[in-house]
């Protein structure tokens, strides 16, 4: 009996904080998303599905609902850019992680230190680094202009590509670490065995290394994708405000746009997308555990 009470009191603060500051606010968001929004911020306690229909439709001057692509475009852009970012991160991370795993022990430690170091640096500063590189007359632009690769009026900032560069830059370490961990666990004798049996390198990579690293690859993919879906800084600083993503669309609803219930419904939507990916991964890992 005494042991149980130690357990109870030890976990109580964590449960209290999480239920009051995490679960309760999420329930409120869910509730607000079904309410009518108040023009002055806040909401009126009248049930309505208006905030959800606003994602797809807009009312024209006759009060007929017309399909509105404005928000659907933002959602599609968010999904596309996040997916593309995760794919680019994967294509770069795998060779890098493999390269690190082939180094001597001291070199490995040093390179991993270099990979994790940016995490300790403020995200705003890291995105600012991208702004500085891509800015008008910045290093990259003057370089490209010197070689005549871009015209005089082209700008590298404020477009989808700039946002993607920023997202890859901020989130790529999240992809390298799990892939590196899974490569380190790999039994290298399998690679030698494959080569002894006259498998070429590409074939070994495809049929031995990649399948065995799949858990790390999937984990890294989810780790990059989830924060990308809700990212705020890159669209604001590198996208220039015109090209929005779901994250800063939500933020605007609680800021300048003052439409809380629409913001809440977008938040619920984002949460559903993220949960879908997390459930997919949980399903995969539980299946793997059953196999082993």
């Amino acid at each position, binding site marked *: 009996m005494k042991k149980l009470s130690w357990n109870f009191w030890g976990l109580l603060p*964590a449960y209290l904080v999480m239920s009051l500051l995490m679960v309760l606010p999420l329930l409120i968001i869910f509730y607000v998303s079904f309410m009518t929004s108040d023009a002055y911020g806040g909401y009126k306690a009248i049930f309505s599905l208006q905030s959800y229909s606003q994602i797809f439709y807009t009312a024209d001057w006759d009060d007929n609902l017309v399909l509105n692509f404005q928000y659907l475009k933002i959602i599609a852009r968010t999904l596309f850019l996040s997916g593309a970012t995760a794919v680019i991160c994967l294509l770069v991370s795998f060779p890098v992680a493999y390269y690190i795993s082939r180094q001597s022990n001291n070199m490995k430690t040093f390179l991993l230190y270099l990979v994790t170091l940016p995490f300790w640096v403020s995200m705003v500063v890291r995105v600012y680094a991208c702004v500085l590189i891509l800015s008008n007359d910045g290093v990259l632009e003057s370089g490209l202009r010197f070689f005549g690769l871009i015209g005089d009026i082209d700008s590298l900032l404020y477009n989808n590509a700039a946002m993607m560069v920023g997202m890859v830059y901020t989130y790529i370490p999240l992809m390298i670490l799990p892939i590196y961990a899974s490569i380190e666990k790999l039994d290298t004798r399998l690679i030698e065995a494959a080569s002894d049996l006259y498998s070429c390198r590409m074939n070994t990579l495809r049929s031995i290394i990649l399948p065995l690293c799949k858990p790390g690859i999937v984990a890294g993919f989810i780790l990059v994708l989830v924060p990308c879906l809700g990212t705020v800084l890159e669209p604001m600083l590198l996208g220039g405000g015109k090209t929005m993503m779901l994250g800063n669309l939500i933020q605007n609803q609680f800021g300048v746009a003052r439409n809380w219930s629409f913001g809440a419904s977008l938040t619920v939507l984002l949460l559903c997308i993220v949960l879908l990916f997390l459930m997919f991964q949980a399903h995969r890992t539980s299946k793997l555990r059953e196999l082993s």
Partner: protein
Amino acid sequence: MNILAMFKPNRDAKHYPGFGAVGVLFFTFLYLPILVIIAYSFNSNRIVSVWQGFSWQWYASALQNEGLLNSLRVSLTVALFATLVATVIAVSAALVLERGQNVKHAKLSQGVVNLPLMLPEIVFAVAILILFSQLGIQSGMLKLILAHSAFCIPFAFLPIRARLQGMDNNLEQAAQDLYATPLVTFRRITLPLIAPGIFAGSMLSFVISMDDFITSNIVSGGGATTLPVYIFSLVKQGVSPELNAISTLIMVASLLIATPCWLIAKRSR
């Protein structure tokens, strides 16, 4: 001779040609922007990209910037309180989950403690904003401390749990066999042993709190601007030499915090 050897086909089956080149490119991509910031921060010219000469002047003007110093003060206060709260909660939760006997719903409790890691931060930020406005909390400082405490908990929890998993509990059991009360065992045996984990966890949550932008940007107001939110407002005004100096100072501070943590984590492994 060595140069010639580079061009000979490598017979090692584990060697993949081209991966090294990607690695070099990757580290250049990761560190070139940072090096450019540092280099430009010493440029005396007000136009950032035109080099005029070496100068410390932007550091001097950054350190006299009232807004910057105020936001730094807010950030340090918030991070200090949030770290304290998060670490205490994380230590007690980690002790129960790693050392407690017959813990009911251990899986669920793990999930509850790590909940902030599963949500995109913007979701948490707007959710807690609505909560605060419903409760009518006005003080920006209090709002920031509460929100930061919540999302720092898993970052404090994970290193402490890792430390507890890494050591066996023979010493703790020996102490209890010698009639030490649980509190004495904790104070004399467990606490000194998990101190590196607590240090790493609290440092991590301190840095996470100092760096946080998304939540702070939405929740703050009421006279409390944190350092990242202040820097963001500067970045929105455009590239400037003073901003380069501020960024360099922040990166130096991060390096000074990250390196000891890394060394401790390496030694305890």
